[in-house]
């Protein structure tokens, strides 16, 4: 499955990229599993997702919990807690 990943704020700075299109292995089915899989991809991902519990995720532009399924997602975003307003 091909999916667009987006990174914002310090997650973006640590991965070094704002977005990328990746092919997801079939056994990666939740946000938490995706984070685990990304951490294997290199030291920059390892560093970006080191404190995985503080990182928020959105699937197709909707906030989700880490145990949310990602099947059929077109766009998955990772970012720190929001600080607008």
């Amino acid at each position, binding site marked *: 499955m091909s999916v667009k990943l*987006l990174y*914002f*704020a*310090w997650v*973006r700075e640590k991965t070094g990229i704002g977005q990328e299109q990746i092919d997801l292995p079939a056994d990666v089915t939740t946000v938490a599993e995706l984070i685990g899989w990304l951490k294997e991809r290199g030291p920059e991902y390892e560093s970006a997702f080191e404190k995985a519990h503080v990182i*928020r995720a*959105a699937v197709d*532009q*909707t*906030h*989700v*919990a880490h145990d*949310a399924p990602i099947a059929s997602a077109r766009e998955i*975003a990772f*970012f*720190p*807690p*929001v*600080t*607008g*307003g």
Partner: protein
Amino acid sequence: MIRVQQRDFDIGAEIEGLRAGRTDIGAIVTFTGTVRDSAMGARVSQMTLEHYPGMTEKELERIEGQACERWPLQASLVIHRYGPMQPGENIVLVITASAHRQAAFEAAEFLMDYLKTSAPFWKKEDGAETGGWVDARESDDTALARWGPEKKAAE
């Protein structure tokens, strides 16, 4: 109505636009968030707001929709800026209009509380002494909790 934009906004003009020709409004509340020149005691020379284009608009519309469901609003507007901003500049504007003051006040506070905790914006501060990404404030989650759990976005 929601708008996400880099350019500044004119509070007076936005209020006038919302109320023009209307005689059914009794109360108009506005909230304007502005850039302060200090944070945690450290000087801030500039702030930059990053956001998630697409999701930002979706979240603001969702939040505004919830406010309109919960309170009898005659009009509402949320404008949120992104990009670099100097101390003293506007960041965000919320306007709510209703027949009575309580609905207008409550809806404006609700919009700000939700916006602070679910709209995908991230502040980065530049300053002589410190700087960097701003941490989320626990008090914002506390503020949100008073509106009840049922409407909170999944996180």
